[in-house]
């Protein structure tokens, strides 16, 4: 049984097909045709809908845009699914009204998807503004200064991030950007708070109605402090769709159905259905196993549950490694990052997947589990060949373990990321990192080459080199030769630049494909190395090196 709210209606499904996507359910079963199919692959956003879930405080609503065309029904359990049909009652929602006023729809086919992405951003912005106002009011009473209420207006950049998964072929986007800014920076619509309270209560009721004696105690909050309710009965089965509540059940299911597909975000698995038309015999959703969604510091490492969506783990990840910000936002569109998980990105073993190169350079290792025992494996030993991994039958990826940067590892308390300043003097120990991605389109594209570099320097000399590359071999790879050659060299010395370029140009045998030629990939490897060297050796010069500056 799967229970969820479809807009304001409580839906209980005793059985769902393994390969039923949310979009097919909406359009074909429910005849709700506002959400469109543009590509059935999560690349255009015409099908965008919003999932609302309660954060761990059971109060705050979390709005998550997803591509309904590549989301299986299992993802809806315990949540509210909002579609474009929900937004306008007697009056248009402010985001719809703004679209109208800015002349932001032409053919209109992408508009419902845009409206839903705008809606999620609006709800998030207004919630933050509402709570900021409350805080501000309280602080005024106690005559404190209120610096955190400055952020009341939404910036253009935030709009671009929120709408990065929606393609429009008609407008050129300018009026859509303006409409989003207009709606989100205008007043909240009447009844906004009441609506939120109503939704919160309905979600709470839904969760409680599902809870019974089998309910597992509330678990630690997820990353960014939300989600994670274990509310589905043990071994819930809807046809051949399973939602195990813990790893024990998962192990049992894998024994019974060895060919079952594991799904967390499903952003790649769903393509087997929508593009290759392959059936799925049994589907096991990992969404209800809280331990697989944990993000926590253990000792000197950050441990990320394999089924944690990228956007949920991003705050913690970029807290420790702010240099990852660009790569993770360019990893995929927001709706994809709202679903896709780090574990999926690794276990999928694409030769390109953007996180594995970064994790290789960060010396990450993996914890594999089969319900009986766990084993730990360095990430570099996980990829055996093209789409082949060291995962054994009955085994799943439990978590990813990334050693914390030394400045964090040394002290138990965490430092504010904004205080993170790269050492520019290089006289003492420092760690230099960069993560680069080159693709035809800046947003929502797959890398021609992804390159990750981490270099430790002590007294100006290179002491350790870790690298990771995507798009240059059958698997994500590192370059050991580079590490050997640079050992002991003076980083500021141009020798490091020249050596690295020479080695990287010959290190791999990339292929020609639709994204890039082998020759271009080789040149990029050398040139990205140059970029890395320039960015980390230039001192006090204003030489621009990047087209777009990232935080």
């Amino acid at each position, binding site marked *: 049984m799967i229970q969820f709210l479809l807009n304001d209606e409580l839906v209980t499904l005793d059985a769902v097909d393994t390969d039923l996507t949310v979009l097919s359910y909406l359009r074909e079963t429910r005849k709700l045709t506002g959400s469109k199919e543009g590509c059935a692959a999560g690349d255009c956003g015409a099908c965008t809908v919003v999932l609302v879930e309660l954060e761990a405080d059971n109060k705050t609503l979390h709005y998550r845009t997803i591509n309904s065309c590549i989301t299986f029904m299992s993802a809806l359990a315990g949540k509210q699914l909002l579609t474009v049909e929900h937004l306008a009652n007697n009056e248009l929602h402010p985001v719809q009204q703004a*679209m109208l006023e800015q002349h932001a729809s*032409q053919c209109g*086919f992408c508009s419902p998807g845009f409206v839903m992405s705008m809606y999620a951003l609006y709800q998030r912005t207004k919630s933050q503004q509402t709570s900021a106002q409350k805080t501000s009011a309280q602080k005024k009473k106690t005559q404190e200064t209120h610096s955190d209420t400055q952020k009341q207006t939404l910036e253009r950049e935030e709009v671009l991030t929120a709408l990065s998964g929606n393609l429009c072929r008609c407008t050129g986007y300018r009026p859509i950007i303006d409409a989003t800014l207009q709606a989100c920076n205008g007043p909240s619509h009447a009844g906004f708070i009441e609506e939120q309270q109503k939704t919160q209560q309905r979600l709470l009721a839904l969760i409680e109605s599902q809870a019974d004696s089998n309910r597992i105690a509330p678990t630690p909050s997820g990353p960014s402090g939300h989600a994670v309710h274990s509310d589905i009965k043990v071994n819930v089965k809807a046809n051949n769709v399973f939602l195990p509540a813990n790893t024990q059940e998962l192990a049992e299911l894998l024994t019974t159905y060895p060919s079952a597909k594991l799904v967390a975000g499903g952003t790649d698995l769903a393509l087997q259905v929508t*593009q290759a038309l392959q059936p799925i015999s049994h589907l096991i959703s990992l969404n209800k196993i809280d331990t697989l969604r944990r993000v926590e510091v253990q000792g000197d490492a950050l441990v990320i549950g394999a089924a944690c969506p990228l956007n949920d783990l991003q705050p913690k990840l970029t807290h420790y490694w702010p240099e990852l910000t660009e790569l993770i936002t360019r990893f995929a569109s927001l709706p994809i990052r709202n679903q896709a998980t780090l574990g999926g990105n690794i276990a999928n073993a694409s030769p390109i997947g953007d996180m594995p190169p970064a994790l290789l350079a960060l010396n990450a290792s993996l914890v594999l589990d089969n319900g009986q025992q766990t084993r730990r494996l360095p990430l570099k030993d996980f990829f055996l060949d093209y789409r082949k991994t060291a995962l054994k039958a009955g085994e799943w990826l439990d978590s990813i373990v990334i050693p914390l940067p030394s400045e964090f590892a040394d002290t138990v308390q965490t430092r504010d990321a904004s205080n993170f300043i790269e050492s520019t003097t290089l006289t003492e120990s420092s760690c230099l990192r960069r993560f680069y991605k080159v693709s035809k389109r800046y947003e929502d594209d797959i890398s021609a080459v992804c390159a990750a570099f981490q270099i430790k320097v002590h007294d100006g000399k290179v002491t350790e080199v870790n690298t990771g590359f995507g798009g240059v071999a059958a698997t994500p790879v590192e370059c050991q030769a580079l590490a050997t050659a640079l050992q002991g060299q003076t980083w500021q010395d141009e020798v490091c630049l020249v050596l690295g370029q020479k080695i990287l140009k010959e290190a791999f045998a990339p292929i020609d494909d639709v994204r890039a030629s082998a020759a271009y990939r080789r*040149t990029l490897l050398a040139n990205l190395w140059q970029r890395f060297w320039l960015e980390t050796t230039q001192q006090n010069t204003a030489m621009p090196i990047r*087209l777009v500056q990232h935080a």
Partner: protein
Amino acid sequence: MRKLIATQQAYPTSDKRSQKHESAKRQVTGTARYVDDLPEPANLLYAAVGTSNVASGTLRQLDLTAVKNSTGVVDVITAADVPGHLDIAPVFDGDPLLAHKQVAFHGQPLFAVIADSVMNARRAVQLAKIDIEPTAPILSVAAAHESNSHVRPPHYMQQGASDLALQQAPHTSEGHLSVGGQEHLYLEGQVSLAIPEEEDRILLYTSSQHPSEVQKLVAEVLNVKLHKVIVDMRRMGGGFGGKETQAAQWACLAALAARRTGRAVKLRLPRQQDMITTGKRHPFENHFTIGFDQQGKLLAADIDINGNCGHSADLSDAIVDRAMFHADNCYFIKDCQISGYRLKTNYVSHTAFRGFGGPQGMIMAEAMMDRIARITGQDPLTVRKHNLYGKENGTLTPYGMEIEHHLIADMLAQLEQSSAYWQRRDEIKAFNETSPIIKKGLALTPVKFGISFTAKHLNQAGALVHIYTDGSIQVNHGGTEMGQGLHTKIAQIAAHEFGVSIDDIEVTATRTDKVPNTSPTAASSGTDLNGKAVQNACQEIKRRLATFYCQEHLNKLDAESIAGVQFVDNKVTLEDTCIDFAELVQAAYIGRVSLSASGFYKTPKIHYDRETGTGRPFFYFAYGAAAAEVVIDTLTGESKVTQVDILHDVGHSLNPALDIGQIEGGFIQGMGWLTSEELCWNADGALTSNNLATYKIPAIGDTPAIFNVQLYDRPNEEESIYHSKAVGEPPFMLAISVWCALKDAIASLADYQVDPQLDPPATPEKVLAAIQVLKQKKGAA
């Protein structure tokens, strides 16, 4: 003859013109229906298409036994099952509904499966056993030239004696450009729903820019007369030319399946198949030889235009013609030879796409300007301004059409000022001198685009206007709504004519049983043609109402009075008399006056003689100019457009908001064509950029943060509808400024003395390659 309703007040100039898109509210609420959203008829079946897996060959055997036995399959259709015409080509033969014996491209439809669900139909397709004996395909323009493989004969235009002039010119230079094609990527894919009606009648809902052609082809395929077929087209989720001719195939297949099964059938292509089986913007291989003087004046040009047409003619004849018509852009070329070749290759048949060959021709003109500028050491804008059509240089195009109205010099001057071109030029040069890795570039380029179908007979339109007894008005016309706002402008025209509120006008779905024998909504002509036809119908009804009003209410019978009646503010007035519009309509109905009329329009003045390559193919020209600033990364070739300033000529704008929407959208689409949108085929002729993961149209982050668009709001000198100008295609070519700006940024690496070779699309890989060549040249020098 007296002018009808001579005193009608002029079309307004205020912001009130910016009516919202008539469907905007329905679009943003998800209630606007596209074909796949229509409530499904009972017992609906779904079709899927099976395609060839080689680019060229002979079909030996098509074993569909397993397909027929697959779950849910009701029927399977091959070429042998077509009762009427197998060829559904729009103009010249060569487009089989389903391939029969000969296979001409990788992905060519061979059969269709009809099943009880989309999934069952598509899965059944996978079970076909296809045996094709491959033959050597022709996969390049060069190979097609070698094999003398053309879909249509070459065409030539010439003026003066370019051979001699090239010999005598102080400077000469040659250039070659491989111009990439473009996938339409309308967000709504190809789709048709066919509903069998009584006996052999059939009703189709289709996403098509050309319902009349769908009607004709369906009738021919089914072997019935045209009057048995009705095509209904409310709106498309984007067209851009991709649904002009190439929507018909899917409608014909759905109709045939519906005929055979007696049940309604829907055929919607999955995105990947849509990208593989439908034609794109033509890739071109173009060449120029130019002669010029040290001042940068272009004296002579010999230009070869080679369109890669794919396996059949489709619209390629007119497309290559239009490329030729625009190879001059805004520049006078005294001695000029333009040769246009239409090469037949084993690719999908390339088709109409916004600009219709114009962009692929026009880019040559801008390439020539850049070349002259680099060789003579001048700023490209200086060279451009130096070569414009005008009294000083000359006013005759290579195809013998006189340029009568010279707007572009003034527009360039305005934009030069408003975009602070020279100040930014200095800033950019200073920046580049101190920035070894990141380089900036700037370019300001003009557009002159000819308005009219070059196939003369298409320049006609019809309309049907009804007034109901409550005074509300229904308007129907031959144009189709694909997002451009045509129905909105039409409603504004009807509202203006009758002097009523736009809420009193309902523009209904385009239907072949309301207005017959229509032209495609293409060539930017939608409003020009249909707007005039609607105006014509409105004026006919107004004449009847005015006559009735004068005779019955005022007892005035003279023509003067009738002509003096005005329709303003929901009232009908003559001098100091006045009656409510709805009241007059009521009275006229009781008085047995017909409240319905059809309208018609044909474009005047146009003619073209293919024998001599001369004439006046265009009613008028639409102009525009754009200044684009870019920044490139010389380590990776990545680029970003940081600022765009546009001044565009739409005549007297019918709706500034919609016009600006066309300009911005056209620009970004053009920018995609020239930067990130790369079509790739493998050595076997299979499309590898066949989904949205591998074919990248601009995303929201690609829109320049500074994007200024101004209208050059000035009446069209020609008698177009309220002196407005067409706006669908011209702005697309404003994006050539981006390509020129990228070249400008690259050229900075060699002190602006070398014109970089940058074949569009300028992907990061291509930009980096151009950079490397320049660095090597500079190193060698």
